[in-house]
């Protein structure tokens, strides 16, 4: 200071001015730093939780894990629906330096269509570079082997295994088990409506038909998930937490592979259905509709050519004849009607009528003909069932009247869905006054009751319904709800399905039921019974009833001639049967389309099924 001689005053003032400005500036700096600190406090302390949550939301993604679908077994534990690894050729674009060369190289090893390559390249553009993209799916064993050997030549190329549904028996169980397919928009909406969509985040397939559809919820299982840390491009960094998926429950069927194979072999090209249940609990033992189709075609998406072929086939393979085929029951319902006649005292075991070969209503000259032109002569209930006398039933039916018939038969399950555990089911038709008024807007005429008494005219039933109705007779009024599934199982154990038996008919006199059982036994046992020839020499005692359903109206006085009539208008052959006679453990229905007489065509098939059933010991508790 001392040395500043000249304008010392001036310098001091300038220095003070600058210093005051420097202090203001310093204050300014401190204030603004305080603003920063205050803002940091707000972000890092006050709002910390909020930002913490958002930060976690950024880095943590939940990856769903699909559960393995439950397996399906037959009654002896043979696998009917399994999950097989299928192999697909997958490429990770990020790891491939020259895509064109790689594709060309792969095309030399396995068959690659230009369409497959185009579809793949489209996916490459659409997806993230580090995602694995399928080039070809469902590789065969040779392709898998060739690719495995050459894999070292192609970095970024892998063969991936994924589980896929497979039905090893092909068309043998199609109509019972059904199949799965890719979830479509409608199904997705349904899942969302049911609040189940979240559980399907990793699932590609859903049961479309049959058991696969009915038990979709049980078979599907519970999705698992992985919490993974991802970076800003979505690439997986590490797995933070993993909750494994819970596999779907396995289902065990009452169906038997041997019975199914027998049914398939005996039907061959015959259109029709074979169904057998255990009358005691409703477990379905055999369930076969012919023709069938291969459900495996549907799993990976059926080609439209294949689908059209199935859809337009004259044999209608897509129809489930066991539960959707509606046939006139014909004479197979005679035992059921006989029971009604006895229980209502319309007839007694001693009642005899004269059969001249036809029946006429009072004040009418229309002749309702017996299948035996010359008539059966004097007939009682035993003869009427055993030889399938139509006139006896015409007369009894008219006496019973439509109301009692309709009411009683409904209690046996006719005209109602059986409630079997698949959704594809028709109810058939049990006609009544009300039904005719509603359907045809006509009153019920006595003339309508006559053919109804032999299971013709408006009356239609599904083979399964007929089986259940027969079981009601065998069970003395207890109606079993048929079920394909007999048990569920998972890691924790097996839980059987409780049989559902409903008393729908009150027994008036037990002896009436025994009489009806006896009539069916005689049909098989006694010479002259319509099923006698078919069951000659069995080492078990069976009962049954044949039926021949007339499809073409035959003019008064004309003859039915199978040779001249169109094949599709020929008679349906029907048969109901059960065994053993005294303690039935199986009740069976055979329905054959346009096959001719029931005794000649359907009864022998029932015999083969029952022979196998007893020989192979299907029912192990016997």
């Amino acid at each position, binding site marked *: 200071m001392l040395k500043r*001689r*000249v304008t010392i005053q001036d310098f001091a003032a300038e220095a003070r001015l*600058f210093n005051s400005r420097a202090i203001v500036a310093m204050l300014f700096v401190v204030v603004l730093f305080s*603003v*920063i600190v205050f803002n940091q406090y707000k972000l*890092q*302390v006050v709002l910390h939780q909020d930002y*913490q949550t958002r*930060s976690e939301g950024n880095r943590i993604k939940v990856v769903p894990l699909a559960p393995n679908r439950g397996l399906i077994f037959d009654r002896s534990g043979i696998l009917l629906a399994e999950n097989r690894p299928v192999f697909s050729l997958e490429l990770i674009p990020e790891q491939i330096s020259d895509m064109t060369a790689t594709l060309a190289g792969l095309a030399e090893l396995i068959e690659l269509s230009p369409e497959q390559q185009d579809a793949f390249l489209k996916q490459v553009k659409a997806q993230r570079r580090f995602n694995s993209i399928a080039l070809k799916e469902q590789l065969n064993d040779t392709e898998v082997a060739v690719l495995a050997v050459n894999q070292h030549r192609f970095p970024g190329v892998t063969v991936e295994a994924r589980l896929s549904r497979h039905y090893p028996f092909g068309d043998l169980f199609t109509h019972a088990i059904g199949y799965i397919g890719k979830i479509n928009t409608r199904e997705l909406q349904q899942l969302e409506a049911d609040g189940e969509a979240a559980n399907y985040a990793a699932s590609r397939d859903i049961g479309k038909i049959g058991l696969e559809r009915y038990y979709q919820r049980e078979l599907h299982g519970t999705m698992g998930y992985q919490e993974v840390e991802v970076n800003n491009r979505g690439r997986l960094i590490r797995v933070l937490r993993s909750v494994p998926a819970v596999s779907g429950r396995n289902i065990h069927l009452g169906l038997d592979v041997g019975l199914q194979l027998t049914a398939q072999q005996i039907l061959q090209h015959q259109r029709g259905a074979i169904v057998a249940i255990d009358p005691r609990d409703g477990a379905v033992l055999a369930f076969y509709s012919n023709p069938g189709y291969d459900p495996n075609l549907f799993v990976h998406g059926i080609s439209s050519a294949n689908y059209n072929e199935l859809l337009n086939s004259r044999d209608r393979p897509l129809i489930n004849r066991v539960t959707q085929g509606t046939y006139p029951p014909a004479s197979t319902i005679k035992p059921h009607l006989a029971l009604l006649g006895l229980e209502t005292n319309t007839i007694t075991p001693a009642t005899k009528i004269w059969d001249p070969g036809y029946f006429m209503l009072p004040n009418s000259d229309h002749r309702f003909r017996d299948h035996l032109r010359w008539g059966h002569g004097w007939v009682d209930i035993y003869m009427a069932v055993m030889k399938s006398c139509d006139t006896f039933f015409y007369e009894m039916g008219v006496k019973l009247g439509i109301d009692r018939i309709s009411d009683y038969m409904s209690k046996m399950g006719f005209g109602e869905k059986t409630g079997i555990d698949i959704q594809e089911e028709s109810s058939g038709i049990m006609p009544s006054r009300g039904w005719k008024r509603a359907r045809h807007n006509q009153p019920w005429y006595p003339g309508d009751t006559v053919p109804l008494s032999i299971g013709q005219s408006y009356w239609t039933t599904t083979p399964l319904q007929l089986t259940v109705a027969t079981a009601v007779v065998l069970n003395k009024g207890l109606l079993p709800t048929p079920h394909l599934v007999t048990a569920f199982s998972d890691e924790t154990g097996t839980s059987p399905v409780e049989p559902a038996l409903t008393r729908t008919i009150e027994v008036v006199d037990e002896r009436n039921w025994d009489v009806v059982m006896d009539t069916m036994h005689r049909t098989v046992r006694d010479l002259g019974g319509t099923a006698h020839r078919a069951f000659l020499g069995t080492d078990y005692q069976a009962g049954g009833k044949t039926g021949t359903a007339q499809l073409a109206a035959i003019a008064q006085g004309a003859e039915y001639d199978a040779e001249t009539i169109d094949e599709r208008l020929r008679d349906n052959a029907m048969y109901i049967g059960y065994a053993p006679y005294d303690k039935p453990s199986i009740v069976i229905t055979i329905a054959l389309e346009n096959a001719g007489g029931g005794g000649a065509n359907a009864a022998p098939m029932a015999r083969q099924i029952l022979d196998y059933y007893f020989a192979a010991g299907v029912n192990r508790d016997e």
Partner: protein
Amino acid sequence: MNDQFTGNARHSRLAMFHIDTPLLLGLLALIGFGLMVLYSASGQNIAMMKGQLVRLGVALAVMIIFAQIKPQTLRRWSLPLFIAGLGLLVAVLMVGHVGKGAQRWLDLGFMKFQPSEIMKLAVPMAVAWFIASHSLPPRLWHLVAGFLMCAVPTVLISQQPDLGTSILIATAGVFVLFLSGMSWRLIAFVAGLVSAFLPILWLFLMRDYQRQRVLTFLNPESDPLGSGYHIIQSKIAIGSGGVEGKGYLHGTQSQLEFLPERHTDFIFAVLSEELGLMGVLLLLGLYLFIISRCLLIASRAQDNYGKLVAGSFTLTFFVYVFVNIGMVSGLLPVVGVPLPLVSFGGTSMVTLMAAFGVIMSVGTHKRMLAAP
């Protein structure tokens, strides 16, 4: 002041090289801390760290060189440097190399060069030279001339367009005028003028992307995946850091790259996330120490030119710090300003250290005789 001379002579050999020891230590601490944060922010990229070390070495060397130049020499070169800078700015507008959609670079063949960096030094130096050649406080016409000296390069740079740098350069010049003692009434008047100028800036001078930045700043959530993404992710990083941080190298926002520009403009968010409020306070403490030390040097400078230049450089340094942190933490719109001495980056660091060299020069070159 006597004891200051003796003190300098006694306590440090560094004084012989015109190095201010406390400031050097402050800078080295900041640089060390910055390198540590950068190691994490770069994703532990060794190549990037080497690049940064080389650049820091060059920048420190430049600082030391500038510290050797006497303030009088600097003062003499102030105007020529300013005029040369203006020429280069014009050249850049005519033949400049287009980088990142803006003409900022001049390709000299062996290196690319950003003339606006020169102006960061040249503008305050030239204004200080002009103001300090008269007695303080400056008269009105001195101030008008000073403003013009700021305005011309500012307009030129804003045409590149580089709004951030142009405003910072204008600010550096204005700080000289403020420190020189322009009256508070005049300051209020200029502030009024500037606010009146803002609509003109918005309507005529700003480019679309610049307007977008401001709009995004005002409401970042309006465009969370577009231009608001930066600021949202940055605030998430800061907020989720909490008081203690997620741990060094363990910031999820930064390590998983949700945070954009994590090693450059947004490095402050990395620090906030991994080291928390504690780390932030340490950083702010270092800055505050450096700024205080520089202002002290300025106030002790022996002539007005030195005081004004050192003061202006210091305040500009502070503005860099504040603008960067303000932008990263959502207080200010996003303008491309790095965090001084911490962000990974090129020429601006060299310029900055040159400025610290000048400040050291001002603080260590004591004339035995006062100038008239």
